[in-house]
C-alpha cells in the first residue's frame, strides 16, 4: 500500500488563540502565537555551541506533503522566513512518505552545510542516526510535530499525544456524566500517535461507567470513518459518544449517525473545520450533540524555526518545547470556525483568513 497514505495525517492543529497563561517554567512567543502555552521540558540547550553570524541557511526535511495540515504548516513556515532578514535560504525537501528517502534527505541537507535542519519525521526512530550525524557536525537539528526517539538531536517542538488523548477522554467522560457506550476511532493502523492518545484516553475512562463498544482505525478519513461507523451502528443499538483523535474521523461518524437516523452525541476530535461546521449546523436540532476538540498547531513549524534562530544567535532554548493544547468546545467554537473556508482547513492557525483564502482559493 502506498506509503504516502500510510502516514496521511498530522493535521494536528491547534489550540487556542485566547488569553495567555504564563505559568512559571513556561514562556510564550510574542505575536500571533503568543497566546499558546509552551512548557519547557528536559532542561535547556545552550546556544553558545551553535552561535554564528548570519545570513543563515535553513533546511527542512518534510516527511511528506499533500494534506491540508502540512500545507498550512508550510505556508506558516514560508511566511515566517520572510520576517527574518538574516535567513538567506530555506531549502525544503519532501520525503514523499518514504522513510529511507527522508534519511537520505537529511544527510543531503547536512552535506549542503545548512545551519539548521527542521524535520517532521516519517519514522520516529529511523531518522535518529541522520539527525545525530548532523548534530555532531554542529548543525542544529529540530524535529517537530511528531516525536523522535532518544536525545541526539538539538530541540523538539510538539504536543503530547498521551496527555491530549487523556484530556479528550476526560472531556467525553464528563460530557456523558460518567456513563454510556462509546466508539473509539483512530488513524492509520499502527501509528504511534493514535496508540499514545488512545492509551491516554483509556486512563481517563478507567473506573467510570463508560463502556467502549469498539475501537477501530478510520484512517483520519471521513469516508472510511463513515463506513466503519455505519457498520457499528448496525451492531450497537446505543451509541452515546465517540472518542476520535482526528476531526475527519469524528465528522465521518457524525455523518453516519445522521444517515442512520440516530441521535448525534458528544464527539471528540481536532480542529478540522468540517467538524465545527457540522456542529454549527446540527447542534440546535440535536440537543445531545457536543464537541470537545484538541489539536496540534499548524504553526509548530514557526516555533521550531524561531528556536533554531535563537540558538544560532547564541541564546538558549528548551530541549523539549511541549505546546499545551486548549479545548475547543460549544463555549468557544464560534471564535474558531471558518464558515467560508473549506472543510479541510485546520482552524487554529497563525495564517490570516485572507492568507487562508489565497491558499485554499
Amino acid at each position: 500500500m502506498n506509503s504516502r497514505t500510510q502516514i496521511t495525517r498530522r493535521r494536528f492543529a491547534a489550540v487556542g488563540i485566547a488569553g495567555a497563561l504564563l505559568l512559571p517554567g513556561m514562556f510564550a512567543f510574542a505575536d500571533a502565537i503568543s497566546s499558546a502555552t509552551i512548557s519547557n521540558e528536559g532542561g535547556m540547550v545552550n546556544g553558545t555551541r551553535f552561535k554564528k553570524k548570519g545570513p543563515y541557511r535553513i533546511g527542512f526535511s518534510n516527511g511528506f506533503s499533500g494534506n491540508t495540515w502540512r500545507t498550512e504548516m508550510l505556508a506558516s513556515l514560508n511566511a515566517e522566513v520572510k520576517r527574518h532578514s538574516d535567513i538567506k535560504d530555506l531549502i525544503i525537501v519532501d520525503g514523499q512518505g518514504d522513510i529511507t528517502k527522508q534519511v537520505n534527505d537529511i544527510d543531503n541537507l547536512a552535506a549542503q552545510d545548512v545551519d539548521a535542519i527542521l524535520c517532521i519525521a516519517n519514522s520516529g526512530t529511523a531518522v535518529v542516526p541522520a539527525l545525530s550525524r548532523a548534530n555532531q557536525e554542529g548543525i542544529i537539528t529540530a524535529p517537530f510535530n511528531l516525536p523522535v526517539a532518544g536525545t541526539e538531536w538539538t530541540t523538539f517542538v510538539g504536543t503530547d499525544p498521551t496527555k491530549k488523548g487523556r484530556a479528550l477522554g476526560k472531556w467525553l467522560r464528563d460530557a456523558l456524566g460518567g456513563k454510556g457506550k462509546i466508539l473509539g476511532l483512530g488513524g492509520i493502523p499502527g501509528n504511534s500517535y493514535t496508540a499514545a492518545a488512545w492509551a491516554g484516553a483509556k486512563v481517563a475512562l478507567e473506573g467510570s461507567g463508560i463502556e467502549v463498544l469498539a475501537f477501530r482505525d478510520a484512517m483520519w478519513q471521513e469516508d472510511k470513518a463513515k463506513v466503519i461507523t455505519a457498520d457499528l451502528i448496525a451492531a450497537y443499538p446505543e451509541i452515546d459518544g465517540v472518542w476520535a483523535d482526528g476531526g475527519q474521523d469524528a465528522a465521518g461518524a457524525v455523518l453516519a449517525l445522521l444517515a442512520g437516523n440516530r441521535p448525534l452525541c458528544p464527539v471528540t476530535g481536532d480542529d478540522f473545520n468540517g467538524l465545527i461546521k457540522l456542529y454549527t449546523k446540527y447542534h440546535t436540532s440535536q440537543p445531545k450533540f457536543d464537541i470537545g476538540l484538541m489539536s496540534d498547531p499548524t504553526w509548530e513549524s514557526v516555533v521550531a524555526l524561531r528556536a533554531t534562530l535563537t540558538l544560532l544567535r547564541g541564546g538558549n532554548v528548551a530541549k523539549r518545547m511541549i505546546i499545551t493544547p486548549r479545548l475547543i468546545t460549544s463555549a468557544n467554537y464560534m471564535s474558531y470556525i471558518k464558515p467560508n473556508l473549506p472543510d479541510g482547513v485546520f482552524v487554529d492557525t497563525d495564517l490570516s483568513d485572507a492568507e487562508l483564502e489565497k491558499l485554499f482559493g
Partner: protein
Amino acid sequence: MAEKFHGLTLILRSGAVWPAAILLYLMAGLISPAMFELRQVVDILQVSAFLGLVALGQTMVLLVGGVDLSVAGVVTLVNILSTDLMDGKISAIPVGVALPLLIAVIVGLSNGVLVVWAGITPLIATLGMNAILYGGALIYTGGAPHGAAAPGFTALGQGSLIGVPASAVCWITVAATMWMLTRRTAYGRRLYAVGANPVAAHMMGVPVGYVLVSAYTLGSLLAGMGGLLVTAYIGQPSLGIGDQFLLTSVAAAVVGGTALTGGIGGVAGTVGGTLLITELNSFTDIVHVSVGAQYVMQGAIIALGTIVYQLAGRARLANSA
C-alpha cells in the same frame, strides 16, 4: 469423466465466490446478528458500489492480461476535480461529472498507449500513471483541496430507490451492462481471446493493440465512475480517498475468479468478490476482535479464496494434459 471434471473446475472458477459470499454472510450473522439486520444489508450494498465499480474496471484490464494500478489516482483526481467544479452548485453537476470522466478516459487511453505501443510493463506504466495523477491532484489543489459535491449529486451516494441504495443501483446497472458487453458481444470474445493468448488472437485477425487500449480505457472510465460515487457518498474532496482501491480492486476481481494471467474470469465473479470483501470488512468492523486480528482475518480469507482458484486452475491443467 475428464470432461466432467473440467466442467466442475470451470464452474468452481466462475461461481465459487457466490457460495463463499453467502457462507461468510451466514457465519458473520451467526457470530454477530447485526449482520442480518436490513439496514446492515443496505449499508453493505451502498458501500460495495464504490469498490464494485472500480473492481469492474480492474476486471476489464485483468481480462486482457494487464493490471491497472492507476485506479487509485483516477479516483482521487475525479474526487478532487468533481468537488472543485461543482463547488456545491447544482447547476455545475453536468460539468462536474463530464469533465472528470473525460479525464479518466484520457488516463485510460494513455495507459493503453504506454503498454501497447511504448511496450512498458502494465505494472510499471500504471503505477507511474498513478504517481502522475496524485502529483497532478497535489499541483491542482496546492495541497489544499476545496469545493463540495452539489446537493442533488450526493443523492447518488447517499439516497435510495425503493429501499435500494442508489449507489448499488448504479453499480448493478453498470455491472449488467459490462456482463452483456463481455459475454454477449464480439468485442467481449475478443477481450477474452487477447487475454488468453494474444499471439493466437492476432493470428485470428483480432486487432490486439486496439482491444488492449480499449480495455485500459474502459477500466479507467469505470474507476472514474467509482470515484464519482464515493464523492457523492462523502460530499467532500480528500487527497487520499482513492488509495483504498489500489489493491482491493485487484483483490475483489481475483477473489471473484479473474486470473491475473488474463483470459479467465469475468464480471459476475467480480461482483461476488466485491460483496465478499465488503462483507468481510463490515463483519470485522462489527465483531469483537482487535485491530490486528481484523487484518489477519481479512488477509487470510482473501488468500484462502485465491488458493482455491489456483487449485482449481491446476486441476484443470492436469485434466487437459
